[in-house]
């Protein structure tokens, strides 16, 4: 009976030994796990920093890629400022009378038109394709009124519905209903210091209510200051076909934009930077 009990139970010493062994194994495992986690954290943090820079550059590239420098879409591209006219959508001309352009409502079901992501606003630029010359004509929107009638005119019917009447700063005499119409928005990218003291890549879009560029919104932060030793947190240059850097008066010749984003120096990760070459205009 005694022998049976001894075989079935666990002595305190056995339990202690088991616990010590388990503790040792756990301690070694925890050390290894901590090292792995640290390396993982470092790699992950670096990756996140690089990825967030890359995401900001992709966003910027999407805004910049569709501009046409020859048409004057590139206003400023130097140091830490980039100012441009960005196409926000394409629709068709519904009707045109003197300096008033009626914009079609557009629809995804129409192969020639898309519903604009937002309404046309005062201060926007509209660019219409002219069949006769094979060129775009650009005008500035000075007033916008609602509309809701059929498109086309007595000469040229067009299968769409009117949605807005847009008063432009000058007439476009050779445009006919159905002409492809691009709507462009004025915007500015710059390196700005926010209330927290961090420098960030900021985007300010045209504010039609105030008739000026709106309050800059941060797109990515933190970035290095404009006078950081390694270079500014955001720098942009426009270059021509042979790679020569263009000055303010030569931007219509721009073929590419070179953009660099750089974070401030971090005690653990140092400086992270990323750059992109954005080809613009016809190639």
């Amino acid at each position, binding site marked *: 009976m005694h022998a049976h009990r001894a075989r079935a*139970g666990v002595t305190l010493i056995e339990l202690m030994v088991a616990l010590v062994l388990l503790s040792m194994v756990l301690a070694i495992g925890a050390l290894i796990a901590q090292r792995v986690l640290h390396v993982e954290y470092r790699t992950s943090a670096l990756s996140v920093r690089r990825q967030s820079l890359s995401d900001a550059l992709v966003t910027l590239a999407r805004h910049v890629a569709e501009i046409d420098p020859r048409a004057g879409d590139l206003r400023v591209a130097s140091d830490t400022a980039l100012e441009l006219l960005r196409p926000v959508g394409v629709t068709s001309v519904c009707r045109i009378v003197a300096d008033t352009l009626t914009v079609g409502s557009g629809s995804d079901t129409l192969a020639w038109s898309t519903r604009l992501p937002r309404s046309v606003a005062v201060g926007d630029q509209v660019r219409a*394709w002219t*069949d006769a010359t094979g060129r775009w004509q650009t005008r500035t929107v000075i007033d916008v009124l609602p509309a809701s009638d059929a498109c086309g005119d*007595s000469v040229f019917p067009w299968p769409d519905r009117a949605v807005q009447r847009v008063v432009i700063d000058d007439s476009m005499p050779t445009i*006919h209903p159905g*002409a492809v119409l691009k709507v462009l928005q004025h915007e500015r990218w710059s390196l700005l210091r926010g209330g927290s003291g961090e420098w960030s890549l900021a985007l300010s879009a045209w504010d039609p209510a105030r008739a000026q560029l709106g309050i800059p919104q941060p797109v990515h932060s933190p970035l290095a200051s404009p006078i950081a030793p390694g270079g500014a947190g955001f720098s942009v240059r426009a270059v021509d076909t042979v790679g020569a850097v263009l000055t303010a008066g030569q931007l219509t010749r721009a073929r590419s934009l070179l953009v660099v984003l750089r974070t401030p120096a971090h005690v653990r990760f140092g400086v992270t930077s990323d750059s992109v070459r954005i080809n613009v205009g016809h190639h």
Partner: protein
Amino acid sequence: MSVITSCATHPRRGIALLLATVMTTVVGIALLVMWRGVGDNRRTSVAESATRRAAALAESAQVAVFFAADSGAWRALSVPGSSQRIAIVTARRESRASDLARTGWLTLLARGTGTASAGRVGIVARADRRTLIPLTAPITLPHAAVTGGALSWLVDSAAVVDVPMPSGRERICRAGLTVAPTGVAAFPPAFQPLLLPMVDPDTVRDTVRGAVRIVGPLLSRPLQVIGILALDSDLLIGADLHVSGVLITRGSVRPSGGHLAVTGAVLAGDAGGGGGQSRLGVGDHVRYDACAARRALELVTTLGPSATWTRLSFY
């Protein structure tokens, strides 16, 4: 029963069981957290892959439109505002559609759309690619029924030059153009290099359809053309000539025993060397028809060079 009894009799076993339960719970919670993290990553990854897939589908759909346009599918779009579904491909989790539209007499719009869905939660991504393709026409629509290159036409009192009031489709074909019975305009410089098939009017019995050249100057057998009839010289009309479309000559057009009947427009360059002024004789009849002229001019209209195509996609 025996286990409970055993636990009750051996308290250390109860502690071990408790430890095992706690450890199992901790491991379970850790696994749950990991699973949620993996799930979030997976959803993001699925959305990204669906977006990329939709973009790729839209690109390939648009390439299909380019091929179709290049092979002449746009010629079926006779009026601005018309569009044509080139292809639509639908699979279980994705689809793509190719459309070609005509936005103007000299503008096409190639559109490719792609839709891709992915994941069990039903993430759907959609992409749209549009490109404006200009058309190149060597000759623009004439502004007059009969146009001289240097001199105005002489129209006999018994000849008819008719410019009807535009209505219906003719109104669309004119597109606001102000048309005169006669006019003078510089001869289209792009006309000369046009490679048009040569036709010998002496051997033709049926109606000629298309854009053709004939050797002038004398037309001695009746001829009927639907399309463009071009001559690099003067044209002496010695037999009946019926043209539905555009008659275009580098030299002048003069009657010589036959009758001229045109539905469309006539362009004379007055540079044939014959020295004569273009003339409509007794019984000649020219009726301005912008639609007939446009149909004829479409025969020599081509897609603009790809360098002039403009991407209109915003994403």
